């Protein structure tokens, strides 16, 4: 793959709670970007229990473990192509760098080497989407550093979950990330809960950048068929919500619904 002078955009999908839909969102983000003819690589950095390949029904031969080993051995001989697995659904295709196949491999991954792998991918792809585990690990902190945008996925169900979101956000702010780098995305907004969205926003002192509709059935079906929602012939509300999120990220958002509130909140931030 030929080197390009500019580097790709890194979108990390992170959360402080498990089972909030990080993997599903990562996959659909990657698929939607690929559908728009961007060159996309999805990297599964939930090293121990990564589900990207499970969800996509693909069987990788090589993984991030092999890639970072190769980098450690001799970075000059390292070529990303050897380690990626292609996902294809009709005419849409994107690259996947899988999580390790064995637990002991997951345990022995060098953060420095992963950074080098990612940096190489940035030279070759327009977008790199990173699916993560829910912890402030060395690796996660390192990739958040190099991310263009952190998609912070939250759900509003239990008080403890919200407490962890708040603590996580405060931690990221204390590390020094711009608030602009962190985008709150609320998943399952209509799920049964007694907690009001506004209360959460007040606690976080931040608005949700995007809200995804609760559609457990669609999500489950997509996991079972291995076809991302955004690539499914059957339109789902959740799939369309993710498409709109990508539209925001790629600056293609038509000046409709969101523009009024968008501008005003942007103004508010500017003068805060």
């Amino acid at each position, binding site marked *: 793959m030929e080197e390009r002078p500019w580097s790709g955009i890194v979108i990390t999908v992170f959360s*402080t*709670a*498990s*089972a*909030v839909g990080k993997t599903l969102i990562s996959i659909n983000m990657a698929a939607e970007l690929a559908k728009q003819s961007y060159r996309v690589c999805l990297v599964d950095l*939930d090293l*121990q*229990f990564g*589900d990207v390949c*499970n969800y996509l029904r693909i069987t990788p031969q090589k993984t991030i473990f092999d890639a970072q080993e190769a980098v450690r051995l001799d970075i000059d001989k390292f070529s990303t192509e050897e380690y990626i697995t292609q996902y294809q659904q009709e005419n849409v295709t994107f690259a996947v760098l899988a999580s390790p196949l064995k*637990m002991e491999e*997951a*345990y022995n991954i060098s953060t420095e080497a992963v950074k080098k792998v990612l940096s190489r991918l940035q030279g070759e792809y327009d977008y790199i989407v990173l699916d993560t*585990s*829910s*912890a*402030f690990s060395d690796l996660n902190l390192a990739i958040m550093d190099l991310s263009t945008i952190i998609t912070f996925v939250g759900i509003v*169900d*239990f*008080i*403890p979950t919200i*407490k*962890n979101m708040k*603590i*996580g956000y*405060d*931690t990221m702010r*204390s590390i020094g990330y711009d608030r602009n780098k962190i985008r709150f995305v609320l998943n399952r907004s209509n799920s*049964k*809960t*007694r*907690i009001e969205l506004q209360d959460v926003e007040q606690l976080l002192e931040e608005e949700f950048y995007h809200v995804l509709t609760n559609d457990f059935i669609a999500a*489950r079906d997509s*996991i*079972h068929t291995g076809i991302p929602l955004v690539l499914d012939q059957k339109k789902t509300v959740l799939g369309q919500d993710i498409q709109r999120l990508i539209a925001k990220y790629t600056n293609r958002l038509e000046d409709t619904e969101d523009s009024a509130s968008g501008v005003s909140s942007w103004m508010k931030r500017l003068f805060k």
Partner: protein
Amino acid sequence: MEYRVVLIESNRIMLERLSSVIKNTKDCEMVSRYKNPHEALGQSGVFKPNLILLDIDETANMQFVPEFKQSFPQAAILCLSSQWNAQASSQAVQAGAKGYLIKPFTSDELLAAVETFGKNGMGMLSETLAFFSPKGKSGKTTLIANLAMALARKSGQPVGIIDADLQFGDMAVFFNLNPQSTIVEAVRDIKFLSPITLNSYFLPVADKVRVLCGTKRPEFAEYVDLKGFAELLRMAQSLFRYILIDIPPAFSPISVAAAEGATMVYLVAMVSGGFEIRHMQQALEIFKAWPDYAKRVKTVFTRVEPCDSASLGKIERELGYPVEAVLPNEYLLVSAAANNGRMAMDIKPDSPLAHNIDRLADKICGKKHIRWDKS
């Protein structure tokens, strides 16, 4: 006077110092004191002591514990040492002492020791149950909180919860606590603690249930070193009949240390139509390194609908490993309780969730009776 105390201490200055503390302690009477166990065994019978404090820094003294026990069957024996030593403590308890106290002690510490060890003795039979969910989100915090209550109720003995989910521990929120001391402080101070002083780091949440809360901020996690944590676990084992540890998701040094320090590991996963069984299999694969893993590692599935033996059997077949318990989906019940910070108290005792947790508690308690019969 409730306690008639006999003190055995070879160091003259320490003897004076401890005597004065005992004399000034409410409900305590210093009936006699000796520099060595021979004198005490020969003479103190006339004073009818019910509490014997025996210094074991004089290592030879340890061997007299059974003799004291025989000569004074109505008395509790507490061993004294200038520093905590898990091995000496367990030897003392095996020899028949009720507990272990660091000297010099204060009046409060003496009373706390008598109260804590007096009734049940130190946890020679302590069992540590570690709860681990490989990929997170499993409902294990709910399970732990309610199981602790059930175990305390059934056994009538003290139960401790340790929130070792260092980055995002939820116990404090679940019980609506605002702890001054957490696992961070406990591990930091462990070298200077004894079981009695460690007990104060655990906050009471119900009769006989105490909680050591997790870190307040994720960055504090790095202050919890593994050696200190293992020591904390050993010391806590002398305080509680059952210890329930909430372990963070994924294999990490802390989760491995907690699992290794435990008598029993419960792998907990929530059924969500995804790949939870595969993750459970991957996790079990790691535990197979233990020669006794089939006995020590149990699995629990939550949000099982319908929650019956047919579902349990189905999961077992798919998993290829026994399933210890299945818990039903009680989302609204649990979320309301969690949001009110009354996790373990608000779950209705007649709900299917409470019922199934109760059954698990029965299994845990019942197993112990069998062990007692054998010994």
